[in-house]
């Protein structure tokens, strides 16, 4: 076995040093009846070449984004990732290191987490950010739990424009934590009146912008209504690139900002691993879940970084902890921070403009197709189409023509009677040829 350095001679010598006759004797504490007497019914080990062949065959059964005109979004987006990002995250010292428990030999990880926290705070317009969460959906659920701790209330109101999967994650954890969640009906045209529903029993209101249907939402008045009632506004985004062009959630009154960071530096990966972003106001710092890197000094007085405020965490506070989380998406956060460093403000703004322009161009082309309606007045790089018929079937027909055209709303909301709606996303990877291919396949498939 190529990964196992011990030879039989080594094993014998080690057993002799321990003073046992066999490795099996080291399992003497396991109840005898539970020890396997034969090997399991599993294949034998394969060479590296054979393993690669096996996966190449599986991979060939999938249609990757780079092989098709690609317009699928709804919470994960195809963007170009500079080659240097993947090169750097594969450096052994990043890839194969662990949680920086020993700061003296982990300054690389700690400093990039500190940089990541600063970037996320700036991008969201908030004062502090943590070192990342599992993904945008779990970050949203944690934001609701945090709002409960801050306000000492246990009821959240979810906008109907919140990504349905995010809403489901919040409802699942809240139901099992015996908290209360009210979810507004699907809000296709961003017309819901959240303000009328805000009262002093709410811990928080959760609003996504751009919302799952692509609409941009002005949070200012919702924030005011929340604050009048002692509730927090949780602002959610699923497309981090949008923050390059839009007013920051912090600037319009959000108290907690959470979102998905996959768009910057991370591949689609069929849903994970992704990187949850989490930022809030300084005053709520000690209620914020997750890992934090902080600045300090070493014994020689040199600036240093270290994991800090772990008194909020499970390994100290156990059943009083702010959450049960004991990790972050370190490597995904690294990819995010490297890509954002490469972009800088100038690049991010430009990237966001190209995304927006490509989406606007596509929306114009589709609005001219008979019996098709673009429902959005405003959007960033994703919008909702109403088509004549079943959108899921349409998507399948377009896939058969080699175009991955979007996400049918019925896949996210199977029982909402919205089967004729289709979410379409465009990014910088889409060319005019892609848009032409989309429209051609669309017309042929309708």
């Amino acid at each position, binding site marked *: 076995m190529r990964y196992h350095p011990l030879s039989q001679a080594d094993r014998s010598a080690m057993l002799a040093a321990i003073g046992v006759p066999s490795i099996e004797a080291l399992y003497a504490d396991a109840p005898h009846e539970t020890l396997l007497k034969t090997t399991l019914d599993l294949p034998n080990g394969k060479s590296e070449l054979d393993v690669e062949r096996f996966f190449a065959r599986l991979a060939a059964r999938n249609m990757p984004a780079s092989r098709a005109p690609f317009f699928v979004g709804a919470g994960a987006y195809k963007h170009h990732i500079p080659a240097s990002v993947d090169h750097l995250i594969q450096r052994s010292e990043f890839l194969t290191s662990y949680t920086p428990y020993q700061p003296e030999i982990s300054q690389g990880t700690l400093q990039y987490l500190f940089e990541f926290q600063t970037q996320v705070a700036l991008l969201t317009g908030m004062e502090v950010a943590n070192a990342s969460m599992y993904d945008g959906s779990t970050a949203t659920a944690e934001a609701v739990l945090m709002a409960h701790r801050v306000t000492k209330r246990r009821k959240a109101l979810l906008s109907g424009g919140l990504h349905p999967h995010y809403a489901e994650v919040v409802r699942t954890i809240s139901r099992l934590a015996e908290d209360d969640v009210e979810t507004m009906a699907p809000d296709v045209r961003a017309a819901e009146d959240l303000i009328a529903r805000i009262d002093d029993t709410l811990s928080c209101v959760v609003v996504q912008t751009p919302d799952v249907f692509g609409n941009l939402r*002005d949070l200012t008045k919702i924030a005011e209504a929340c604050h009048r009632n002692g509730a927090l506004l949780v602002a959610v985004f699923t497309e981090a690139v949008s923050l390059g062009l839009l007013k920051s959630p912090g600037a319009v009154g959000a108290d907690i900002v959470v979102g998905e960071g996959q768009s910057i530096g991370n591949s689609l990966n*069929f849903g994970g691993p992704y990187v949850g972003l989490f930022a809030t106001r300084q005053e709520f710092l000690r209620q914020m879940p997750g890992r934090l890197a902080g600045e300090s000094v070493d014994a020689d007085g040199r600036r240093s970084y*270290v994991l800090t405020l772990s008194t909020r965490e499970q390994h100290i506070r156990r059943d009083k902890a702010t959450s049960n989380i*004991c990790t972050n998406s370190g490597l995904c956060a690294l990819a995010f921070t490297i890509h954002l*460093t490469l972009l*800088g403000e100038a690049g991010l703004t430009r990237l966001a403009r*190209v995304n927006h322009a490509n989406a606007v161009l596509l929306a114009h082309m589709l609005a001219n197709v008979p019996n098709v309606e673009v429902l959005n007045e405003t959007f960033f790089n994703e919008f909702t189409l109403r088509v004549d018929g079943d959108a899921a079937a349409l998507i399948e027909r377009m896939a058969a023509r080699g175009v991955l055209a979007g996400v049918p709303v019925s896949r996210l909301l199977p029982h909402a009677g919205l089967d004729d709606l289709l979410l379409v996303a465009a990014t*910088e990877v889409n060319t005019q040829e892609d848009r032409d291919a989309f429209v051609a396949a669309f017309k042929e498939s309708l």
Partner: protein
Amino acid sequence: MLDRPAVVEPLDDDKTPATFTGNRGLDQEEPLIFEIGRVDATGVDIDDPAPIATRLGALERTAPIGLPGLTEPETMRHYVRLSRKNYSIDAGLYPLGSCTMKHNPRSNEKIARYEGFADLHPLQPQSTARGALELMQILADWLMTLTNMPAVAMSPKAGAHGELCGMMAIKSAIAARGESATRNVVLIPQSAHGTNPATAALLGFSVRVVPAAPDGTVRAQAVKDALAPDVAAIMLTNPNTCGLFEREIVDIADALHEAGGYFYCDGANFNAIAGVARPGDFGIDAMHINLHKTFSTPHGGGGPGAGPVVLSERLAPFAPVPFIRRNGDSLQLVEDAEGTQSFGRLTAFHGQMGMFVRALAYMLAHGGDGLAQASKDAVLSANYVRASLRDVMTQPFGDRICMHEVLFDDAWLRGTGVTTLDFAKAMIDEGYHPMTIYFPLVAHGAMLVEPTESESKASLDLFIATLRDLARSAKAGEVARFTPAPRLAPRRRVDEALAARKPVLRWEAKAAS
């Protein structure tokens, strides 16, 4: 066994020599991107956006963000310099007990980057992702075979997320029995991972602590004493965090089931027994498997991980969506909980696909017998370290067989003026990442060593010789080797108290003076 002399001469001064740049040879100081970047600099060339009438309404940003950029060469140098301030498993032995730092094959990285996996969207039509669903099913089949459990939930994103998933399934099963109001206590041993009580508390359970016996394990009688009609479940780690196999685990499971409770096993240490014993045969109901530990997906500075949960027949119906269902010859991803007993959704999409690829590649490379050998070698290595140090260091529960990690305490340091922390920091000067220290909490001044199966005997021998020399030095009263340590790392001891007392969690522009 090697018995090397101390190779570090005590320095005259406890400070390292000063240099003009602050650099020391290959260890180069690096400012923050906020200090070297410029708001108008970029390392990415992006085409001009097409001229369009925007559809942003009044929500377009008007204020600057304040994000600096770096060109590509500057970016490369910044992160390469940072990387060189990190210890990693590729650079040396990383004996972090309970964390499992073992070899990370690069073949797995290569495969995870095949565009057929990395460039696949979670919501593209299932008909265009057949290979991905098949991969998830094959991995699920391996996990079920290795554990002898009938079902597995794939979506949990980390070990602690898996715990949440397993306990949610248990809570749902109790609700289905109509016992939500009466069964609200979870039994947790003193030595448990901190995530266990945190998970139970998050779900509204109260925690009842089960004491450990003097030998570091949990006695079935102690569990029986704590059992009552209000007990929903036990959360037990096996092998436990003291590196010991819970000898009475089958009796514990029986007692618990008889009392109407469920058995959650924390699978953090599955890598000691994979291919050797199956948790399903212990009588457990749910167990998460840290794919990153047992099946070696890279830890990436702390994450991401992956924590699929195997489930018993009794808990399987409550598994979260999405799950895979076989429809004749094809696999279907069921994403909608309606009409099932599923407790709902844990995360937006299907789980850590990127980690699934790496873990399955690791499994296929080993095969069934290779995985068993890996577990056995991990246990052999840990016991070799134990046997080679037992005459100089002490163990809290006496010298007995351990599993894949060996626990020492600080009784042997008493009166030397050297603490566990000092000892750990002195290891850094010797080129080692320290072991896990001060965990588990049940041992005073704990030092938990996990060498894993990927160390050669020569590597273990040097490690042992180094620890023996440090132990000799500590006992000889050479405190100067320990208290100022580390002296030879990129940083000396970092002031953790200051960081917590005055938290500085982001860079701020200095006010103009």
